């Protein structure tokens, strides 16, 4: 980002929205880095909340307000809670766990840095002179999103509800405890995944 800032004069006079976007983007990126590098498993889930909330603010800055609130509701409200339940049910250690990263961390770092360098180069080279016009009517208001969703995207929307139903049934089947006991009681670990998937369904 800084490299391209020196190359193009358009970057030297940022607007307020751009400054806010970059600052929140830095916070989001830092929280994401902490999510993948911290050795405390519960803290990783909490840093993920910061990263996803920062992304919701970025959506608001891009005038996609309905997406932003859906992001807050589903990701911060449900997915992170589900991940925390998963951490608890798999008896994740509280405090620092020394084996949170595997041995191929250096290889993963190399792959990620190479991918980041290549993609940043390509993206900056491609969109160096492209501007997004954020003025005028909001692109992602609830009115516009709902109208396009139920006018042009009704069939995918309904297909998606079938997919959610399949995921609900799949989660129930996977977490049934009838492997050892022939009764097949759905207790314990099955409940959080099922209830959360059911929440998405409604």
């Amino acid at each position, binding site marked *: 980002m800084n490299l391209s800032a020196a190359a193009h004069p358009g970057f030297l006079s940022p607007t307020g929205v751009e400054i806010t976007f970059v600052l929140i983007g830095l916070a989001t990126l830092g929280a994401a880095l902490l999510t993948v590098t911290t050795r405390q498993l519960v803290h990783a889930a909490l840093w993920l909340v910061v990263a996803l909330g920062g992304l919701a603010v*970025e959506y608001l800055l891009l005038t996609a307000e309905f997406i932003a609130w859906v992001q807050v509701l589903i990701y911060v409200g449900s997915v992170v809670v589900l991940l925390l339940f998963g951490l608890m049910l*798999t008896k994740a250690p509280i405090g620092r766990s020394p084996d949170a990263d*595997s041995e*191929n961390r250096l*290889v993963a770092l190399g792959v990620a840095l190479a991918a980041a360098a290549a*993609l940043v180069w390509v993206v*900056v080279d491609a969109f160096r002179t492209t501007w997004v016009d954020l003025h005028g009517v909001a692109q992602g208001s609830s009115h516009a999103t709902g109208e396009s969703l139920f006018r042009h995207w009704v069939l995918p929307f309904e297909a998606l509800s079938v997919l959610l139903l399949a995921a609900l049934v799949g989660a129930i089947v996977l*977490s049934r405890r009838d492997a050892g006991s022939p009764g097949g009681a759905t207790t314990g670990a099955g409940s959080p995944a099922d209830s959360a998937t059911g929440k*998405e369904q409604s």
Partner: protein
Amino acid sequence: MHLAYPAVLAVLLFCVGLYGVLARRNAILVLMSVELMLNAVNLNLVAFDVWLRDTVHAGQALTLFTITIAAAEIGLGLAIVLLVFRHRGSSDVDRLTGLAEPHGGPGAPHAPDASDATPTPAADDEKAEASA
């Protein structure tokens, strides 16, 4: 706003998620990194939708669909992780070598791996007999 800002942020978030998927050992942390990668894609979709001023709002509709599919994916993924944890007593992805090559590997002393590995020669024998 410059389009390079959201694009570069999405690229960096994707690569952070890529590092997490490759480097983490706990399966739930791998799922968190997958969520980061999906969110990077969502940011790209929203940014390009706003840039192109799409009349049917394909980018935002696809973002909503991606969020829903990610929620379904995390539910199913956690159900699978809990099932694996219940069977193996561990959710470390580099110990789940039941489908690995039979010779060598760090998961060799596990009992389920041995029982998984034993039917393979019998199946090979059957295949050899069938082909003969």
